[in-house]
Protein backbone atom coordinates (compact mmCIF):
# COMPACT_ATOMS: atom_id res chain seq x y z
CA UNK A 1 0.00 0.00 0.00
CA UNK A 2 1.39 3.33 -0.94
CA UNK A 3 1.65 5.86 1.84
CA UNK A 4 2.35 8.69 -0.56
CA UNK A 5 -0.97 8.52 -2.35
CA UNK A 6 -4.36 9.63 -1.18
CA UNK A 7 -6.52 6.64 -0.41
CA UNK A 8 -10.15 6.49 -1.40
CA UNK A 9 -11.33 3.06 -0.36
CA UNK A 10 -9.86 0.07 1.45
CA UNK A 11 -11.32 -3.39 1.20
CA UNK A 12 -13.25 -4.74 4.23
CA UNK A 13 -12.68 -1.46 5.98
CA UNK A 14 -15.88 0.48 6.52
CA UNK A 15 -14.13 3.26 8.39
CA UNK A 16 -13.08 6.29 6.36
CA UNK A 17 -9.68 6.10 4.66
CA UNK A 18 -6.77 7.40 6.74
CA UNK A 19 -6.01 10.37 4.58
CA UNK A 20 -7.31 13.82 3.91
CA UNK A 21 -5.12 14.39 0.88
CA UNK A 22 -6.65 14.72 -2.54
CA UNK A 23 -5.26 13.86 -5.93
CA UNK A 24 -6.30 14.36 -9.52
CA UNK A 25 -7.96 11.38 -11.11
CA UNK A 26 -5.81 9.78 -13.79
CA UNK A 27 -6.75 7.48 -16.62
CA UNK A 28 -5.24 5.48 -19.42
CA UNK A 29 -6.86 5.72 -22.83
CA UNK A 30 -6.42 2.82 -25.22
CA UNK A 31 -7.16 3.78 -28.82
CA UNK A 32 -7.90 0.43 -30.39
CA UNK A 33 -7.86 2.03 -33.84
CA UNK A 34 -4.18 2.95 -33.40
CA UNK A 35 -3.05 -0.32 -31.89
CA UNK A 36 -0.94 -2.57 -34.10
CA UNK A 37 -0.79 -5.45 -31.64
CA UNK A 38 2.99 -5.38 -31.31
CA UNK A 39 2.77 -6.51 -27.67
CA UNK A 40 5.45 -4.03 -26.67
CA UNK A 41 3.20 -3.14 -23.75
CA UNK A 42 3.09 -6.78 -22.68
CA UNK A 43 6.86 -6.91 -22.38
CA UNK A 44 7.09 -3.47 -20.80
CA UNK A 45 4.58 -4.60 -18.19
CA UNK A 46 6.59 -7.73 -17.43
CA UNK A 47 9.90 -5.91 -17.35
CA UNK A 48 8.81 -3.06 -15.12
CA UNK A 49 6.93 -5.29 -12.73
CA UNK A 50 9.58 -8.00 -12.91
CA UNK A 51 7.02 -10.64 -13.75
CA UNK A 52 8.13 -14.15 -14.54
CA UNK A 53 8.43 -15.55 -18.04
CA UNK A 54 5.75 -18.12 -18.67
CA UNK A 55 6.68 -20.78 -21.18
CA UNK A 56 3.99 -20.41 -23.83
CA UNK A 57 2.85 -22.54 -26.74
CA UNK A 58 1.37 -21.27 -29.96
CA UNK A 59 -2.27 -22.34 -29.87
CA UNK A 60 -3.17 -21.23 -33.36
CA UNK A 61 -3.08 -17.51 -32.83
CA UNK A 62 -0.86 -14.44 -32.80
CA UNK A 63 -1.93 -14.10 -29.17
CA UNK A 64 0.91 -14.89 -26.78
CA UNK A 65 -1.00 -16.45 -23.90
CA UNK A 66 -4.45 -17.97 -23.90
CA UNK A 67 -5.35 -16.00 -20.80
CA UNK A 68 -4.14 -13.55 -18.19
CA UNK A 69 -2.27 -15.10 -15.29
CA UNK A 70 -0.58 -14.09 -12.03
CA UNK A 71 2.56 -13.50 -14.12
CA UNK A 72 0.83 -11.90 -17.09
CA UNK A 73 -1.13 -8.81 -16.12
CA UNK A 74 -1.53 -7.51 -19.64
CA UNK A 75 -2.55 -9.57 -22.64
CA UNK A 76 -3.15 -8.52 -26.21
CA UNK A 77 -6.17 -10.44 -27.42
CA UNK A 78 -6.50 -11.09 -31.16
CA UNK A 79 -9.70 -11.88 -32.98
CA UNK A 80 -10.52 -12.11 -36.66
CA UNK A 81 -14.06 -11.17 -37.51
CA UNK A 82 -16.13 -9.92 -40.39
CA UNK A 83 -18.01 -6.72 -39.66
CA UNK A 84 -20.33 -5.36 -42.35
CA UNK A 85 -18.65 -7.60 -44.89
CA UNK A 86 -15.18 -6.29 -44.06
CA UNK A 87 -12.48 -8.34 -42.45
CA UNK A 88 -11.34 -6.94 -39.13
CA UNK A 89 -8.42 -8.08 -37.06
CA UNK A 90 -9.46 -6.85 -33.66
CA UNK A 91 -6.61 -6.45 -31.22
CA UNK A 92 -7.46 -5.48 -27.68
CA UNK A 93 -5.28 -4.73 -24.70
CA UNK A 94 -6.70 -6.75 -21.85
CA UNK A 95 -5.76 -5.63 -18.35
CA UNK A 96 -7.37 -4.14 -15.26
CA UNK A 97 -9.71 -1.26 -16.05
CA UNK A 98 -9.40 0.23 -12.56
CA UNK A 99 -13.11 0.84 -12.00
CA UNK A 100 -14.37 3.81 -10.07
CA UNK A 101 -16.71 1.34 -8.34
CA UNK A 102 -14.40 -1.62 -8.01
CA UNK A 103 -16.30 -4.89 -7.81
CA UNK A 104 -13.16 -6.64 -6.62
CA UNK A 105 -12.73 -4.31 -3.69
CA UNK A 106 -16.38 -4.58 -2.75
CA UNK A 107 -16.17 -8.36 -2.78
CA UNK A 108 -12.93 -8.55 -0.81
CA UNK A 109 -13.25 -9.71 2.84
CA UNK A 110 -9.65 -9.00 3.81
CA UNK A 111 -9.03 -5.55 5.25
CA UNK A 112 -6.40 -3.70 3.23
CA UNK A 113 -5.99 -6.33 0.57
CA UNK A 114 -7.42 -4.06 -2.07
CA UNK A 115 -6.95 -0.32 -1.98
CA UNK A 116 -8.39 2.28 -4.26
CA UNK A 117 -6.53 5.56 -4.45
CA UNK A 118 -7.95 8.94 -5.18
CA UNK A 119 -6.01 8.93 -8.46
CA UNK A 120 -8.15 6.02 -9.65
CA UNK A 121 -5.72 3.16 -9.22
CA UNK A 122 -7.10 -0.01 -7.68
CA UNK A 123 -4.18 -1.91 -6.20
CA UNK A 124 -3.92 -5.37 -4.67
CA UNK A 125 -1.75 -5.72 -1.58
CA UNK A 126 -0.72 -9.30 -1.47
CA UNK A 127 0.50 -9.11 2.14
CA UNK A 128 -3.11 -8.56 3.22
CA UNK A 129 -4.67 -10.90 0.71
CA UNK A 130 -6.11 -14.10 2.16
CA UNK A 131 -6.47 -15.85 -1.17
CA UNK A 132 -10.24 -16.29 -1.03
CA UNK A 133 -10.57 -15.05 -4.66
CA UNK A 134 -13.83 -13.29 -3.96
CA UNK A 135 -12.33 -10.44 -5.99
CA UNK A 136 -12.15 -12.76 -8.97
CA UNK A 137 -15.87 -13.33 -8.88
CA UNK A 138 -16.42 -9.68 -8.00
CA UNK A 139 -14.67 -8.38 -11.10
CA UNK A 140 -17.01 -7.67 -14.03
CA UNK A 141 -14.08 -7.83 -16.47
CA UNK A 142 -12.56 -11.14 -15.35
CA UNK A 143 -9.14 -9.67 -14.62
CA UNK A 144 -7.65 -10.81 -11.27
CA UNK A 145 -5.75 -14.09 -11.36
CA UNK A 146 -5.00 -16.43 -8.44
CA UNK A 147 -1.53 -17.86 -8.00
CA UNK A 148 -1.67 -21.40 -6.70
CA UNK A 149 1.80 -21.26 -5.20
CA UNK A 150 1.59 -18.04 -3.25
CA UNK A 151 -2.19 -18.35 -2.76
CA UNK A 152 -2.62 -14.68 -3.57
CA UNK A 153 -4.38 -12.82 -6.33
CA UNK A 154 -2.56 -10.52 -8.78
CA UNK A 155 -3.41 -8.02 -11.47
CA UNK A 156 -2.26 -4.81 -13.14
CA UNK A 157 -1.47 -2.12 -10.59
CA UNK A 158 -1.20 0.64 -13.20
CA UNK A 159 2.53 0.78 -12.36
CA UNK A 160 1.61 2.56 -9.17
CA UNK A 161 5.25 3.03 -8.28
CA UNK A 162 5.82 4.91 -11.52
CA UNK A 163 2.65 6.94 -11.15
CA UNK A 164 3.62 7.83 -7.61
CA UNK A 165 6.90 9.16 -9.00
CA UNK A 166 5.05 11.24 -11.59
CA UNK A 167 5.65 8.88 -14.51
CA UNK A 168 3.22 7.22 -16.86
CA UNK A 169 2.66 3.45 -16.62
CA UNK A 170 5.20 1.29 -18.48
CA UNK A 171 2.75 0.20 -21.17
CA UNK A 172 2.00 3.83 -22.02
CA UNK A 173 5.68 4.68 -22.14
CA UNK A 174 6.52 1.86 -24.53
CA UNK A 175 3.64 2.06 -27.01
CA UNK A 176 5.24 2.85 -30.39
CA UNK A 177 2.12 4.14 -32.09
CA UNK A 178 0.80 6.23 -29.20
CA UNK A 179 -2.22 3.98 -29.01
CA UNK A 180 -2.14 4.32 -25.21
CA UNK A 181 -2.38 7.77 -23.67
CA UNK A 182 -2.08 8.85 -20.06
CA UNK A 183 -3.34 11.92 -18.25
CA UNK A 184 -6.13 13.19 -16.05
CA UNK A 185 -9.43 11.51 -16.54
CA UNK A 186 -10.93 14.74 -17.85
CA UNK A 187 -8.14 15.20 -20.37
CA UNK A 188 -8.44 11.60 -21.50
CA UNK A 189 -12.20 11.92 -21.90
CA UNK A 190 -11.67 15.00 -24.05
CA UNK A 191 -9.00 13.20 -26.06
CA UNK A 192 -11.29 10.22 -26.47
CA UNK A 193 -14.10 12.39 -27.75
CA UNK A 194 -11.79 13.82 -30.40
CA UNK A 195 -10.62 10.35 -31.37
CA UNK A 196 -14.20 9.16 -31.75
CA UNK A 197 -14.91 12.09 -34.05
CA UNK A 198 -11.85 11.23 -36.14
CA UNK A 199 -13.06 7.64 -36.39
CA UNK A 200 -16.51 8.74 -37.45
CA UNK A 201 -14.94 10.86 -40.17
CA UNK A 202 -13.03 7.77 -41.26
CA UNK A 203 -16.31 5.88 -41.63
CA UNK A 204 -16.64 4.16 -38.27
CA UNK A 205 -20.17 5.34 -37.62
CA UNK A 206 -20.48 3.46 -34.33
CA UNK A 207 -17.17 4.49 -32.82
CA UNK A 208 -17.49 5.02 -29.09
CA UNK A 209 -15.67 5.62 -25.85
CA UNK A 210 -15.84 2.70 -23.44
CA UNK A 211 -16.23 4.14 -19.96
CA UNK A 212 -19.11 2.09 -18.52
CA UNK A 213 -21.31 3.82 -15.97
CA UNK A 214 -22.29 0.57 -14.26
CA UNK A 215 -18.92 0.57 -12.53
CA UNK A 216 -18.85 4.32 -12.09
CA UNK A 217 -16.52 4.75 -15.06
CA UNK A 218 -13.06 3.24 -15.47
CA UNK A 219 -9.48 4.44 -15.40
CA UNK A 220 -8.46 2.49 -18.46
CA UNK A 221 -10.88 3.61 -21.11
CA UNK A 222 -11.03 2.38 -24.67
CA UNK A 223 -11.76 4.08 -27.94
CA UNK A 224 -13.67 1.35 -29.75
CA UNK A 225 -14.03 1.63 -33.54
CA UNK A 226 -17.06 -0.68 -33.63
CA UNK A 227 -18.81 0.58 -30.51
CA UNK A 228 -21.91 -1.43 -31.40
CA UNK A 229 -19.95 -4.70 -31.34
CA UNK A 230 -18.49 -4.65 -27.84
CA UNK A 231 -18.76 -8.41 -27.51
CA UNK A 232 -16.25 -8.79 -30.34
CA UNK A 233 -13.75 -7.02 -28.14
CA UNK A 234 -14.70 -9.10 -25.07
CA UNK A 235 -16.02 -5.96 -23.45
CA UNK A 236 -19.23 -6.42 -21.40
CA UNK A 237 -22.08 -4.25 -22.61
CA UNK A 238 -23.22 -3.22 -19.18
CA UNK A 239 -20.86 -4.26 -16.42
CA UNK A 240 -21.90 -3.68 -12.83
CA UNK A 241 -19.74 -3.40 -9.73
CA UNK A 242 -21.87 -5.84 -7.76
CA UNK A 243 -23.94 -8.49 -9.51
CA UNK A 244 -27.38 -9.50 -8.15
CA UNK A 245 -26.27 -12.27 -5.77
CA UNK A 246 -23.61 -10.05 -4.21
CA UNK A 247 -26.13 -7.27 -3.64
CA UNK A 248 -28.57 -9.81 -2.18
CA UNK A 249 -25.80 -11.21 -0.01
CA UNK A 250 -25.17 -7.77 1.39
CA UNK A 251 -28.79 -7.41 2.40
CA UNK A 252 -29.01 -10.88 3.88
CA UNK A 253 -25.80 -10.34 5.81
CA UNK A 254 -27.24 -7.23 7.35
CA UNK A 255 -30.43 -9.09 8.33
CA UNK A 256 -28.29 -11.99 9.52
CA UNK A 257 -26.23 -9.82 11.80
CA UNK A 258 -29.45 -8.64 13.51
CA UNK A 259 -30.76 -12.19 13.77
CA UNK A 260 -27.57 -13.42 15.40
CA UNK A 261 -27.75 -10.51 17.79
CA UNK A 262 -31.42 -11.15 18.56
CA UNK A 263 -30.65 -14.84 19.07
CA UNK A 264 -28.02 -14.21 21.70
CA UNK A 265 -29.87 -11.39 23.41
CA UNK A 266 -33.14 -13.35 23.19
CA UNK A 267 -31.62 -16.34 24.92
CA UNK A 268 -30.33 -14.14 27.71
CA UNK A 269 -33.69 -12.43 28.14
CA UNK A 270 -35.39 -15.80 28.14
CA UNK A 271 -33.07 -17.05 30.85
CA UNK A 272 -33.81 -14.00 32.94
CA UNK A 273 -37.55 -14.36 32.33
CA UNK A 274 -38.07 -18.04 33.09
CA UNK A 275 -34.76 -19.16 34.54
CA UNK A 276 -33.14 -22.54 34.13
CA UNK A 277 -35.40 -25.54 34.17
CA UNK A 278 -34.28 -28.46 36.30
CA UNK A 279 -36.07 -31.57 37.51
CA UNK A 280 -37.94 -30.60 40.75
CA UNK A 281 -36.52 -33.39 42.90
CA UNK A 282 -33.05 -33.40 41.48
CA UNK A 283 -30.26 -30.94 41.53
CA UNK A 284 -29.56 -31.94 37.99
CA UNK A 285 -25.92 -31.92 38.82
CA UNK A 286 -24.31 -35.22 37.94
CA UNK A 287 -22.99 -36.88 40.96
CA UNK A 288 -25.38 -34.96 43.17
CA UNK A 289 -28.10 -36.43 45.31
Amino acid sequence: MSNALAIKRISATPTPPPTIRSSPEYAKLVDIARCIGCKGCEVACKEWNELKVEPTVNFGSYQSHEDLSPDTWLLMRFRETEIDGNLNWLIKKDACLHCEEPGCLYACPAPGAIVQYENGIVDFNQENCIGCQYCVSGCPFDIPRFDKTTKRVYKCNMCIDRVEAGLEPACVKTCPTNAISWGTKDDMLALATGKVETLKERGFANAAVYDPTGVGGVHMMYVVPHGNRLAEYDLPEDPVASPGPIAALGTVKKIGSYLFGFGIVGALLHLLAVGPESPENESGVPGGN
Partner: protein
Amino acid sequence: MRANEIQRFTYAERVVHWVVGVTFVFLLLTGLAFSYPKLFWLTSLVGGGAVARVLHPWVGIVFTVGLVFMVVLWIREMFLDRHDVEWLKAIRHYVAHQRDKVPPAGKYNAGQKLFFWVQSVSGVVFLVTGLLLWFPEGFLGLDPFGRGTLSAMRFLHYLATLGCGLFLIVHVYLGTVAYPGTARGMIDGKVTRGWAKLHHPQWHREKTGS
Protein backbone atom coordinates in the same frame (compact mmCIF):
# COMPACT_ATOMS: atom_id res chain seq x y z
CA MET B 1 -24.12 -46.33 36.32
CA ARG B 2 -26.04 -45.06 39.22
CA ALA B 3 -29.66 -45.95 39.72
CA ASN B 4 -30.96 -42.51 38.90
CA GLU B 5 -29.02 -42.28 35.66
CA ILE B 6 -29.86 -43.30 32.14
CA GLN B 7 -27.46 -43.78 29.25
CA ARG B 8 -28.48 -41.20 26.66
CA PHE B 9 -25.60 -41.18 24.10
CA THR B 10 -23.09 -43.81 23.12
CA TYR B 11 -19.39 -43.12 22.97
CA ALA B 12 -19.50 -42.96 19.16
CA GLU B 13 -22.36 -40.49 19.23
CA ARG B 14 -20.50 -38.23 21.61
CA VAL B 15 -17.34 -38.27 19.56
CA VAL B 16 -19.24 -37.51 16.39
CA HIS B 17 -21.20 -34.74 18.12
CA TRP B 18 -18.10 -32.98 19.31
CA VAL B 19 -16.30 -33.38 16.00
CA VAL B 20 -19.20 -31.73 14.26
CA GLY B 21 -19.70 -29.23 17.04
CA VAL B 22 -16.13 -28.03 17.38
CA THR B 23 -15.53 -27.85 13.63
CA PHE B 24 -18.79 -26.03 13.17
CA VAL B 25 -17.88 -23.39 15.69
CA PHE B 26 -14.52 -22.98 14.02
CA LEU B 27 -16.21 -22.67 10.65
CA LEU B 28 -18.80 -20.28 11.98
CA LEU B 29 -16.28 -17.95 13.55
CA THR B 30 -13.91 -17.90 10.59
CA GLY B 31 -16.87 -17.66 8.25
CA LEU B 32 -18.25 -14.71 10.15
CA ALA B 33 -14.80 -13.14 9.95
CA PHE B 34 -14.91 -13.44 6.16
CA SER B 35 -18.44 -12.06 6.08
CA TYR B 36 -18.14 -9.14 8.45
CA PRO B 37 -15.11 -6.83 8.26
CA LYS B 38 -15.78 -5.90 11.89
CA LEU B 39 -15.24 -9.51 12.86
CA PHE B 40 -12.16 -10.03 10.68
CA TRP B 41 -10.10 -9.88 13.88
CA LEU B 42 -11.44 -13.36 14.65
CA THR B 43 -9.04 -14.73 12.05
CA SER B 44 -6.15 -13.71 14.28
CA LEU B 45 -7.36 -16.40 16.69
CA VAL B 46 -6.29 -19.01 14.14
CA GLY B 47 -3.22 -17.28 12.78
CA GLY B 48 -4.51 -14.59 10.46
CA GLY B 49 -6.73 -14.23 7.42
CA ALA B 50 -4.63 -16.24 5.03
CA VAL B 51 -4.35 -19.16 7.46
CA ALA B 52 -8.06 -18.96 8.16
CA ARG B 53 -8.70 -19.09 4.41
CA VAL B 54 -6.55 -22.21 4.12
CA LEU B 55 -7.98 -23.93 7.21
CA HIS B 56 -11.64 -23.13 6.68
CA PRO B 57 -12.22 -25.55 3.78
CA TRP B 58 -10.12 -28.31 5.34
CA VAL B 59 -11.98 -28.02 8.62
CA GLY B 60 -15.10 -27.99 6.49
CA ILE B 61 -14.12 -31.39 5.15
CA VAL B 62 -13.77 -32.74 8.71
CA PHE B 63 -17.12 -31.19 9.55
CA THR B 64 -18.70 -32.84 6.53
CA VAL B 65 -17.27 -36.24 7.38
CA GLY B 66 -18.51 -35.87 10.94
CA LEU B 67 -21.88 -34.85 9.68
CA VAL B 68 -22.09 -37.94 7.50
CA PHE B 69 -21.46 -40.15 10.52
CA MET B 70 -23.99 -38.17 12.50
CA VAL B 71 -26.60 -38.69 9.84
CA VAL B 72 -25.83 -42.41 9.72
CA LEU B 73 -26.08 -42.67 13.47
CA TRP B 74 -29.19 -40.61 14.03
CA ILE B 75 -31.25 -40.43 10.90
CA ARG B 76 -33.57 -43.27 11.90
CA GLU B 77 -34.52 -41.39 15.05
CA MET B 78 -34.96 -38.05 13.41
CA PHE B 79 -38.01 -38.46 11.21
CA LEU B 80 -40.81 -36.23 12.36
CA ASP B 81 -44.19 -37.86 13.11
CA ARG B 82 -47.67 -36.61 13.99
CA HIS B 83 -46.64 -36.38 17.60
CA ASP B 84 -43.88 -33.96 16.66
CA VAL B 85 -46.34 -31.78 14.81
CA GLU B 86 -48.39 -31.55 17.98
CA TRP B 87 -45.24 -30.66 19.87
CA LEU B 88 -44.39 -27.91 17.43
CA LYS B 89 -47.90 -26.51 17.73
CA ALA B 90 -47.36 -26.19 21.44
CA ILE B 91 -43.92 -24.66 21.19
CA ARG B 92 -44.88 -21.42 22.87
CA HIS B 93 -45.76 -23.40 26.01
CA TYR B 94 -42.41 -25.16 25.76
CA VAL B 95 -40.68 -21.82 25.67
CA ALA B 96 -42.68 -20.65 28.66
CA HIS B 97 -41.82 -23.84 30.63
CA GLN B 98 -45.48 -24.90 30.76
CA ARG B 99 -44.69 -28.63 30.67
CA ASP B 100 -48.24 -29.76 31.19
CA LYS B 101 -49.32 -28.11 27.97
CA VAL B 102 -46.52 -29.66 25.89
CA PRO B 103 -46.99 -33.10 24.38
CA PRO B 104 -44.42 -35.40 25.95
CA ALA B 105 -41.30 -35.66 23.80
CA GLY B 106 -39.49 -38.85 22.87
CA LYS B 107 -35.71 -39.19 22.83
CA TYR B 108 -35.62 -36.11 20.67
CA ASN B 109 -38.20 -33.41 20.59
CA ALA B 110 -39.34 -31.88 17.33
CA GLY B 111 -36.99 -28.91 17.80
CA GLN B 112 -33.96 -31.17 18.05
CA LYS B 113 -35.11 -33.12 15.02
CA LEU B 114 -35.46 -29.92 13.07
CA PHE B 115 -31.97 -28.86 14.13
CA PHE B 116 -30.72 -32.18 12.84
CA TRP B 117 -32.38 -31.68 9.49
CA VAL B 118 -31.26 -28.08 9.18
CA GLN B 119 -27.70 -29.18 9.86
CA SER B 120 -27.89 -32.09 7.45
CA VAL B 121 -29.41 -30.17 4.58
CA SER B 122 -27.07 -27.26 5.24
CA GLY B 123 -24.22 -29.73 5.23
CA VAL B 124 -25.00 -30.53 1.63
CA VAL B 125 -25.25 -26.83 0.80
CA PHE B 126 -21.98 -26.13 2.60
CA LEU B 127 -20.25 -28.93 0.76
CA VAL B 128 -21.40 -28.04 -2.72
CA THR B 129 -21.04 -24.30 -2.44
CA GLY B 130 -17.90 -24.63 -0.35
CA LEU B 131 -16.13 -26.73 -2.94
CA LEU B 132 -16.83 -24.13 -5.59
CA LEU B 133 -15.63 -21.36 -3.36
CA TRP B 134 -12.58 -23.38 -2.43
CA PHE B 135 -11.43 -23.69 -6.05
CA PRO B 136 -13.15 -20.84 -7.85
CA GLU B 137 -10.61 -20.80 -10.67
CA GLY B 138 -11.63 -24.32 -11.56
CA PHE B 139 -15.22 -23.31 -11.97
CA LEU B 140 -14.98 -19.87 -13.56
CA GLY B 141 -14.59 -21.48 -16.95
CA LEU B 142 -17.64 -23.67 -16.48
CA ASP B 143 -19.65 -20.79 -15.17
CA PRO B 144 -22.98 -20.90 -17.00
CA PHE B 145 -24.29 -17.76 -15.35
CA GLY B 146 -21.28 -15.57 -15.79
CA ARG B 147 -19.54 -14.43 -12.69
CA GLY B 148 -22.91 -14.57 -10.84
CA THR B 149 -22.44 -18.23 -10.00
CA LEU B 150 -19.71 -17.82 -7.44
CA SER B 151 -21.52 -14.89 -5.92
CA ALA B 152 -24.65 -17.03 -5.72
CA MET B 153 -22.57 -19.73 -4.01
CA ARG B 154 -21.46 -17.18 -1.45
CA PHE B 155 -25.11 -16.25 -0.93
CA LEU B 156 -26.23 -19.84 -0.39
CA HIS B 157 -23.23 -20.63 1.81
CA TYR B 158 -24.15 -17.67 3.97
CA LEU B 159 -27.84 -18.61 4.13
CA ALA B 160 -26.94 -22.08 5.39
CA THR B 161 -24.63 -20.51 7.94
CA LEU B 162 -27.40 -18.26 9.12
CA GLY B 163 -29.80 -21.18 9.58
CA CYS B 164 -27.33 -23.38 11.38
CA GLY B 165 -25.90 -20.52 13.38
CA LEU B 166 -29.26 -19.45 14.75
CA PHE B 167 -30.13 -23.03 15.72
CA LEU B 168 -26.71 -23.32 17.33
CA ILE B 169 -27.44 -20.38 19.60
CA VAL B 170 -30.63 -22.06 20.76
CA HIS B 171 -28.88 -25.42 21.01
CA VAL B 172 -26.03 -24.14 23.15
CA TYR B 173 -28.33 -22.03 25.30
CA LEU B 174 -30.69 -24.88 26.02
CA GLY B 175 -27.96 -27.42 26.40
CA THR B 176 -26.06 -25.42 28.98
CA VAL B 177 -27.58 -22.74 31.21
CA ALA B 178 -31.23 -23.20 30.29
CA TYR B 179 -31.44 -26.93 31.01
CA PRO B 180 -28.82 -27.92 33.57
CA GLY B 181 -27.86 -31.56 33.23
CA THR B 182 -28.20 -31.63 29.50
CA ALA B 183 -24.56 -31.13 28.56
CA ARG B 184 -23.56 -34.11 30.62
CA GLY B 185 -25.32 -36.33 28.11
CA MET B 186 -22.68 -35.31 25.62
CA ILE B 187 -19.80 -35.68 28.07
CA ASP B 188 -20.14 -39.07 29.74
CA GLY B 189 -23.31 -39.96 27.87
CA LYS B 190 -25.54 -40.09 30.94
CA VAL B 191 -28.48 -38.07 32.13
CA THR B 192 -30.49 -38.33 35.31
CA ARG B 193 -33.90 -39.93 35.38
CA GLY B 194 -35.38 -36.65 36.59
CA TRP B 195 -33.84 -34.81 33.65
CA ALA B 196 -35.18 -37.43 31.29
CA LYS B 197 -38.61 -37.35 32.80
CA LEU B 198 -38.70 -33.59 32.57
CA HIS B 199 -37.36 -33.06 29.08
CA HIS B 200 -38.12 -36.30 27.33
CA PRO B 201 -41.00 -37.93 29.26
CA GLN B 202 -41.91 -40.34 26.52
CA TRP B 203 -38.30 -41.54 26.16
CA HIS B 204 -38.07 -41.78 29.98
CA ARG B 205 -41.12 -44.00 29.95
CA GLU B 206 -39.67 -46.19 27.23
CA LYS B 207 -36.33 -46.50 29.01
CA THR B 208 -37.68 -47.09 32.51
CA GLY B 209 -41.10 -48.54 31.88
CA SER B 210 -42.61 -46.06 34.35
